[in-house]
């Protein structure tokens, strides 16, 4: 049952798409490769047994993000196509390399993925409680929905308002001049 082989291949796929996204100088090509990256990521979420997240990634990543990015470069211009790949920015690479190394060192001290004694999975007061009592407390079988709208409803309310505010902010940013023009 262990997803070992597929996880290894997905690792390569996601990493290659991410590298290609960074490497393309042409923005349209980068957007296309980023869409491929999003596909790989959705499969990864599915392998890690998060169907709800994979679903959101499918709708948002495949549809909305790509469309918004495309619209933006349709509204503006793409850079000149004198070269197709970025040249390497060495000082940036140095800083980012140091940052990644630090993160990679901390990775060794995380609990193993899938271990049953990992604190997030085994916590009896949070995760285990949600799984055992969600149906009894809220009457829905999907524990994710139960936590989303039930146990963490206040948090979700905040998120919804943030999304709403982002919509208003976008309209304000793009339409301010319209109000004052006439």
């Amino acid at each position: 049952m262990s997803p070992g082989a597929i996880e290894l291949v997905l690792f390569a796929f996601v990493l290659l798409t991410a590298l290609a996204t960074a490497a393309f100088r042409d923005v349209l090509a980068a957007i296309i490769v980023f869409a491929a990256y999003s596909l790989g990521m959705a499969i990864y979420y599915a392998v890690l047994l998060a169907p709800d997240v994979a679903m959101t990634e499918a709708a948002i990543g495949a549809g909305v993000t790509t469309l918004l990015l495309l619209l933006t470069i349709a509204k503006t211009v793409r850079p000149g196509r004198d070269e197709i790949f970025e040249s390497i920015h060495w000082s940036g690479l140095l800083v980012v390399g140091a940052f990644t190394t630090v993160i990679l060192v901390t990775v060794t001290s995380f609990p193993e993925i899938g271990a049953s004694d990992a604190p997030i999975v085994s916590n009896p007061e949070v995760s285990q409680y949600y799984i055992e009592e969600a149906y009894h407390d809220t009457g829905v079988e999907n524990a994710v929905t139960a936590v989303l709208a039930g146990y963490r409803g206040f948090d979700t309310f905040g998120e919804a308002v943030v999304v709403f505010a982002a919509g208003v902010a976008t309209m304000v940013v793009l339409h301010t001049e319209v109000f004052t023009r006439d």
Partner: protein
Amino acid sequence: MTPLVDVLTSRYAYVLFALLLGIGLYMIVSSQNLVKKVIGLNLFQTALFLFFIASAYLAGGQAPIVHHGGKEATYVSPLPQVIVLTAIVVGIAVTAVALALLVRIYAEYGTLEEDVLREVRSDD
């Protein structure tokens, strides 16, 4: 060397998380084009999502659809999935605000290249 390899092979997703974080950060830092910076921001975000989802995973578990509160099976933790779920939607909202700002910047300065933008701004 072997213990290190063992440690890393049992933590594929965390290694991928670190590398994607690096790639996303590199795009944000070094891309000349602002749209590519936004793509880098998105990439950085998805790396963090992967970290959350991987930390929720339980080997041999099931997706957190608890049929009638059955306790006979083991399930992955729903909590990080909920956090990621809301974060994805907030992420697209953040991306959209950033892109709206880019459209505004282009209307104002006529370019999305960072170095050109810096020149134009210094001329003002």
